[in-house]
């Protein structure tokens, strides 16, 4: 097999190295997060996450090996497959915590809504790349039609967090693709107007979460418990942190979901403000590197694809940390690369693979 030399030379090492570093940091933090009061820490989940990282690495390589232009042709079949998976979740999925999100695949539980995010980025990039900039709202018909089933199926699980995330990613791609500014304003106004209607469709627990977000201390042992304990964990880290494996909020299990959605609180307790600044900077750097891929991409599909992945990373990261620090309601969005979870890690690696794909082919056209 002949490998184009330009591909090797143009390989986006900073993006690649930073991604792997963050994923390794995730495993280290998961190890701490699954330590409880017993003197011995369990390596079980950290080990499992390492296997997921290897699998994610494989898919990353797959994702940057195939030229994204060739991938373009496979977008709709992939889209169809994911929609079917989402439908299956509703029929035969595993129910946990009041919603049906997982498919039992014997060896592991697949979370198709994770895949849905990336498929949506592909679909939008493909459907929007033929429009000329400054197109109007009416042109959005087809993309919206494509988004609708995914959004609906995710909402039915119900997974409000992922639905909001998908919407925000879609918005980013649409904006990037050059929707007319006036249309954008209309659209935003309409979306805000639709909020009270949407509220009616929320499950009671979702409404409670949003209310609790407004005032978490009102119910410190009930719905507000997560946020209150998470803020205590983060705050008690102070400047230098309590030290690795030394976070009492985590080890005494006051923190909920400490290895998944709330893993940032574990990190913040142990590493303090100094460690958090480093982590935040690393993430920002990752997103800026992703935006550099957008800037360098040589065709509209590449631009929109990279922009979608950047948006996906950005929103997940921002929403997760916002939620853990009590700035946003608790919506169940994991911290990409760090939170425990196979589907999330593999999907993120895959997305980063796509970014590298676009990045390394910037000079081939």
């Amino acid at each position, binding site marked *: 097999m002949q490998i184009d030399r330009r591909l090797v030379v*143009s390989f986006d090492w900073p993006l690649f190295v930073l991604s792997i570093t963050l994923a390794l940091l995730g495993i280290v933090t998961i190890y701490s997060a699954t330590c409880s009061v017993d003197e011995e820490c369990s390596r079980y989940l950290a080990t499992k996450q390492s296997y997921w990282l290897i699998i994610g690495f494989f898919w990353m390589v797959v994702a940057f090996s195939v030229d994204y232009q060739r991938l373009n042709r496979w977008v709709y079949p992939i889209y169809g497959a994911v929609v079917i998976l989402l439908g299956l979740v509703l029929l035969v999925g595993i129910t946990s915590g009041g919603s049906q999100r997982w498919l039992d695949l014997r060896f592991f539980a697949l979370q198709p809504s994770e895949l849905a995010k990336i498929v949506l980025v592909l679909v939008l990039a493909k459907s929007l790349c033929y429009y000329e900039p400054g197109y109007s709202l009416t042109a959005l018909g087809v993309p919206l039609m494509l988004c609708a089933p995914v959004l609906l199926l995710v909402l039915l699980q119900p997974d409000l967090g992922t639905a909001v995330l998908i919407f925000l990613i879609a918005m980013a791609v649409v904006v990037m693709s050059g929707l007319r500014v006036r249309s954008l304003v209309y659209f935003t106004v309409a979306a805000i107007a639709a909020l009270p209607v949407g509220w009616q469709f929320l499950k009671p627990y979702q409404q409670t979460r949003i209310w609790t977000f407004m005032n978490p201390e009102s119910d410190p042992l009930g719905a507000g418990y997560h946020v209150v304990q998470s803020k205590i964990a*983060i705050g008690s880290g102070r400047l230098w942190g309590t030290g690795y494996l030394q976070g009492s909020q985590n080890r005494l299990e006051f923190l909920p979901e400490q290895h998944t959605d709330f893993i940032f609180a574990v990190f913040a307790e142990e590493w303090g403000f100094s460690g958090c600044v480093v982590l935040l900077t690393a993430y920002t750097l990752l997103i800026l590197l992703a935006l550099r891929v957008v800037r360098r991409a040589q065709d509209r599909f590449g631009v929109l694809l990279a922009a979608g992945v950047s948006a996906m990373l950005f929103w997940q990261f921002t929403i997760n940390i916002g939620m853990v620090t009590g700035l946003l309601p608790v919506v169940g969005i994991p911290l990409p690369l760090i939170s425990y979870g196979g589907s999330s890690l593999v999907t993120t690696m895959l997305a980063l693979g796509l970014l590298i794909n676009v990045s390394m082919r910037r000079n081939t056209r």
Partner: protein
Amino acid sequence: MLPLRTSSRTLPEFRGRIRFFTLLVLLALALLTYRLWMLQILQGHRYAVLSESNRIRLERIPAVRGLVFDRHQRLLIHSRPSFDLRYAPGEDANGLTPLRRLGHLLEADTEELVETARHANGSKGVTLLRDVNWPAVVAVETHQLDLPGIHVSVKARRSYLTDDMTAHLLGYLGEISTEQLRGLRRKGYRSGDEIGQAGLEKLWEPHLSGRSGGERVEVDATGQKVRVIDRLKATPGHNVVLTLDMDVQQAAYDALKGREGAVVVLDVDSGAVLALVSTPAFNPNAFARGLTAREWRELTQDGETPLHNRTLQGHFPPGSTFKIVTALAALQEGVISPDQRLFCGGSYKVGNRVLRDWKKHGHGQVDMHKALVESCDVYFYQVAQRLGVDKMAKWARRFGLGSPTGIALDGESAGLVPDRAWKRRRFGTPWYPGETPLVGIGQGFIGTTPLQMASMVAAVANGGTVYRPWFVQRVVSPEGVVMEEYGPVRAATVKLKKGTLEVVRRALFDVVHGRRGTARRARSDLVSIAGKTGTAQVAEMRGEAVKSKDLPYEIRDHAWFVAYAPTDKPEIAVATLVEHGGGGGATAAPIARKVVEAWFLSGDDESDDVEMTDAQLTRLFGERPRHAN
């Protein structure tokens, strides 16, 4: 240098929008960094404190309450480990099966267990069975796996070795009330604590309670103890040694058993309480175990009012026992000489009212001696009339009647000594001359407690000194250091002429020993007793005198007997009251005799008692440092 690298060229249409997104990312970074700065730096201290209070819990170590001994070092109260079965249905509780198994295992009433378990709310749980025996503890521990949610909890439980016998004196413990807690929180009490609610347990609470310790423990989110960080040991309570003589107390209790009444035995030369019994009584161990609603209802609504301490909480007309006071007052005031005779024809007329003697046909010519020995009412009607109510009241008060004796027990009644001023205050009417004779024989308005009467007769026996009754000799720390020591307190000294006392004492001797004495049934072969009977009317009988035993129970006479012994050199004073017991000589006097004999026999064999205490202590606590002595 990378030769193939061309200058990267951004598609022009995206330039502005990429810049917009870059700005957005940096803005988000700034916002999140600021948020973390706020949480970790600005409010970091506050959250660190919150984290600490999440992690650290203070757990109390309850103090072991002090022991109580009688004057011969016999143990009366101790605290023993006791086992309760508690039920806290966790998330994994599978319905009522464990309760059924438990019921089967212990052969207990399953329905009742289920009913009790119904009150278990959340993780707090309920106590299913209190104070279960050791085989039950073993059975539950061995079947632990089959009994999820059920566990054995151990705590120190107060054990009253003398049961009902000392109920009113020793009192009982109960859960601290909200009002009590308000004042005592500073002293380390917390809600749910037990505190003395009556008797010695209440009034010596500060000595007995000790001070609870505590430990700081690290807990996890479910409240499970992870490790102990540091510990402050509890200080055990001090032991209390009473002046009580359990032999005397036991004799008094046995003699009174089945009746409503009271016995008070005082040391003549100090006012120390040797026995203080009120019946019916209650079992303080039931309080320690925790009373059921029904038990409490029975205690409080029982017509016999077992919680009521008859020795001092209620006053009764003293009847003829009061004639001792009338006699002393009359002789001291000189309204009559000991030898002066008055005629008793069975009744006495005051105004248009005819007052009867208990003896229908009268006692004939009566002097002071005969009047006391035979308890002639008509003699004392006349003497009272000569004295006037105010002078009688003055002398009664000198002997401590009409005001609380000051014993360190709750709810002591002052009794009632009437005089003109009192009548005017109370009823707004003047004193009628016809009321005076009745007071002279201890009837009418006058009321006294058995404790007051014992104190009065002790003063007669010791030559006129009224002591404040007391029952705690000393408080001793668990290491054996004497913390407090108590002694006699003189409340008053009544100046009496030697001759006056002689006359009365000789008469009181003959009340028991004389051929016509009213208390011949108090005569003992072991020790000589002097005393005075009293038969106090409850309902005023107009017309013909009716035999008390023919009356309905509630209006039968109260039987009194006050005494001291030995007569030549008095050492103890006794007051006995049997409510609705009929004649004092028939009912109360024999009780007093038994009590005096018990005291006489218990006398000096202290060496035996101490040995018994040692054995008791070893049996109860195993080998451990002796508490007292």
